[in-house]
């Protein structure tokens, strides 16, 4: 069997982009990721055949799990201090706000990240990329958002890495993010990309977000005001979850604990 080439994958991506650009006037813009996306080969047997079934959220679906100081050590937000020495690579700060669709900050909520090291290698045992592991870098971190919905991590810039989707397939540099909102229906796992990455348009995963503006929402912005002298460059990336079904109020906690009539 001949391996699929990047040119063939790029042609598939381009055909979808052109069909989208030629959609009828007035057709709404896509805001999120395509469910089915053949260029991403592992999706073929895993994406559901049926459209998701609409339902009104009830009970526990209207709430998200609660995390607190007991769950997360503030030091877990610094991915550069987990070893006995400094990890190699460009030290960066990544920060931004987690908001719901109405622009309300998501407060005190768990944010989890994982990423390759500066060479493009994960510690994960299944990662076979022959790039060096870094004994001072595990590539995992956690934090809680503050009252403004802000998260902040210190890490190193991940490298791009090869994968087996097709011949000579390379993932653009990215940081994986896991986020919770105030409703469980807002649960989001996504990836943050870096500005100007030449691999992004070639990547079957990033291009599964066909609308250019929607895809751009996964890309961080370089922010010199976040850059710290003699220390680290800074990137800003805000995350917007889908709208909440529920308007959070002061008595949320009491209601949740059933202390309300």
């Amino acid at each position, binding site marked *: 069997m001949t391996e699929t080439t990047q040119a063939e994958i790029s042609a598939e991506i381009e055909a979808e982009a052109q069909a989208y650009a030629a959609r009828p006037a007035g057709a709404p813009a896509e*805001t999120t990721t395509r469910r089915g996306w053949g260029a991403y080969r592992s999706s073929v*047997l895993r994406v*559901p055949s049926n459209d998701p079934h609409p339902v009104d959220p*009830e009970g526990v679906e209207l*709430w998200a799990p609660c995390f607190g100081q007991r769950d997360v050590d503030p030091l877990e937000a610094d991915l550069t201090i987990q070893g006995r020495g400094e990890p190699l690579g460009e030290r960066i700060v990544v920060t931004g706000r987690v908001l719901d669709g109405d622009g309300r900050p998501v407060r005190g909520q768990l944010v989890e990240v994982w990423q390759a090291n500066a060479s493009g290698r994960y510690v994960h045992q299944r990662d076979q990329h022959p790039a060096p592991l870094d004994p001072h870098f595990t590539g995992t971190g956690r934090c809680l958002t503050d009252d403004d919905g802000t998260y902040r991590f210190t890490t190193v810039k991940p490298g791009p890495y090869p994968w087996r989707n097709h011949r000579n397939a390379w993932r653009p540099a990215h940081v*994986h993010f896991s986020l919770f909102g105030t409703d469980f229906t807002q649960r*989001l796992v996504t990836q943050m990309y870096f500005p100007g990455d030449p691999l992004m348009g070639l990547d079957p995963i990033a291009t599964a977000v066909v609308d250019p503006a929607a895809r751009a929402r996964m890309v961080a912005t370089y922010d010199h005001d976040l850059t710290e002298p003699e220390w680290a460059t800074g990137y800003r990336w805000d995350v*917007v979850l889908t709208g909440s079904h529920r308007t959070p109020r002061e008595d949320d906690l009491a209601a*949740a604990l059933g202390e309300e009539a």
Partner: protein
Amino acid sequence: MSDLPPTPGQTVGPFFHDALPWTGDAALVPPGRADAVRLHGVVRDGAGDPVPDALVELWQAGQDGRVVQRPGSLHRDGHTFTGFGRCATDRAGSYSFTTVLPGAHAEGAAPFVSLTVFARGLLHRLLTRAYLPVGLGGTAEALAADPLLAGLDPGRRATLVCEVDDDGGGAGGQALRRDLVLQGPGETVWLTYPRLPHGG
């Protein structure tokens, strides 16, 4: 009404195991507890093959049907029930939680737990419910009256309701069984919440 467009989802990929699971993630209560119940199943793909690199999340109310808002899921103290757990599937595609039976969220409602599935190849997470079956927390009346279940044809409805098996451990312990079929024959009913401006 919302006006900020959402950040798109992306696949969890194959390399989440060092970041998302934690020790004790799938044991919402200690397995030895008298009222502990096992909820387990296999995640399968469109070819019927097990998915060994999926992550399943469980979120549920307490035994009294009330939503729990207590921290501590990531460092369980053995006493506090947080309602949240995670389980990465094993090489056979299996997941297994130890939890308690949730109560109904309203009088006469059918109790269920909420499940999320992430996996390499899934561009965005999938959400579903696992309803408690007759004989293990559910009643025929409440299941028959449930608005979601009532709107589905019987074949698809069955994918949302747990089965009872005897893999609960101990002496004839019963367990809840709920396979999660990503695609194809027996495909699980995956849910969306259209009151959200940009879908669920």
